């Protein structure tokens, strides 16, 4: 029972976070994710367990036209940013992979470089050294992105 309740709580949390982002209520979503981060025990990996399922259900509501795909990519990108800001590296990495895949499938490169850059950060935080090197190599030398604290180059990573 406790496990089911926990699943419900995770599901609810994931639903709320995704709904807030899709409604462009980014600050509320940020607060929700930060609260979740603070609640988790130290030393435990940070995961919003049912995030993928919730996301999958949420994305099914969108059409397959390019305008809808752009909106999906924008929402996913913002979700990954908020997750990274709260150290949910693994979840952020999976979402960034989704954005990168959508970018390549639809030849939409607006988020592509930054998502690769951000994926490299996640992989480095997770200690996935080999994958990190591979992803970093996909980012052209000289690429820089604006993070909240300023501009960073891929060479600095």
């Amino acid at each position, binding site marked *: 029972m406790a496990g089911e309740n926990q699943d419900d709580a995770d599901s609810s949390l994931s639903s709320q976070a995704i709904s807030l982002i899709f409604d462009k209520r980014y600050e509320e979503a940020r607060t929700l994710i930060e609260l979740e981060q603070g609640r988790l025990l130290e030393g435990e990996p940070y995961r919003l367990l049912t995030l993928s399922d919730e996301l999958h259900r949420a994305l099914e509501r969108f059409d397959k036209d390019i305008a809808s795909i752009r*909106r999906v990519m924008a929402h996913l990108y913002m979700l990954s940013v908020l997750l990274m800001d709260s150290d949910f590296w693994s979840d952020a990495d999976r979402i960034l992979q989704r954005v990168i895949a959508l970018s390549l499938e639809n030849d939409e490169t*607006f988020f592509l470089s930054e998502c690769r850059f951000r994926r490299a950060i996640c992989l480095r935080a997770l200690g996935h050294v080999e994958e990190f090197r591979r992803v970093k190599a996909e980012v052209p030398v000289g690429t*820089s992105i604006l993070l909240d604290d300023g501009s960073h180059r891929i060479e600095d990573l």
Partner: protein
Amino acid sequence: MATPNSLRTYDLLQQAIEQQRALQQGDDWNSPNLVPGQNPDRDQAPQGLLGRLRALLTEQSQYQPVAGTDGPESAQSLDPNFRQLSRVPIAGRPQVAVDPSNRSAVPSDLAGGDISLNSPIATGQGAVRPQTTSRLLGIPAQSWTVTPSSMTPVPVGWRLGGVPFPVPGPPLSPPPRIPVPSVPEWWKVAGKLLQLYPRVFSGLAAGGGDDEECEKQRRKARETCTEAYADGWKSDHDVGPYSTSSGDTWSIDDCMRGLVSEACGGNPVDNEPRKNGRRKPGRR
């Protein structure tokens, strides 16, 4: 004027001092047994800080005070000069003492501390063996270690004003270095990352970084650019898309740098109008 009670206390104190002196003189300070006891496991000492620490804890657990073993030494427990009398559980072993010459080699911070050289801790009777401690601290073992003694109560510390302190040793040397455990490789990697990620370490990045106002600008710019992209570039801000000087396609980074101030990492303001007049001044 001293009262009879205080005189009696003084007499008892004097008597106890004499007893202690006699006890010390009875010790064989020049015994060859004063050579530090060799730890049979010394050559197989566990490696690593945790291993050494575990061995140390094992040795400590071997020291178990035994109750009801006062015997003939019980009278000595009345010695007021002893702060505490500890019982050494190993019976039948020859009592040994500390060689004064070796004793003088004890660092003054240890000799002058609360722990007597004759205490179980200092004598390495299972509580803490100096050899082990030395290895733990990365310093060579001192020869002041003594082998286990008998059931004789041994003093843990002296009261001030009782027996004079030994002559202070040489000046304090710098504290020994504690070996640092090795850091896993992935931690080094993560550490480098944390130096880059903005929320953890600010100020390392170019274009400001330690300014809360800049952080707000960048965050707002990110949201504006993302929403503009999602809404087909409908926006109240100058979000693009534009062709870039590098020939690359318009990216969120290009968009953001057009919205934040130069001090916060944005592009310099381009005030030079194009010939056709279509391009507005801005950060592109």
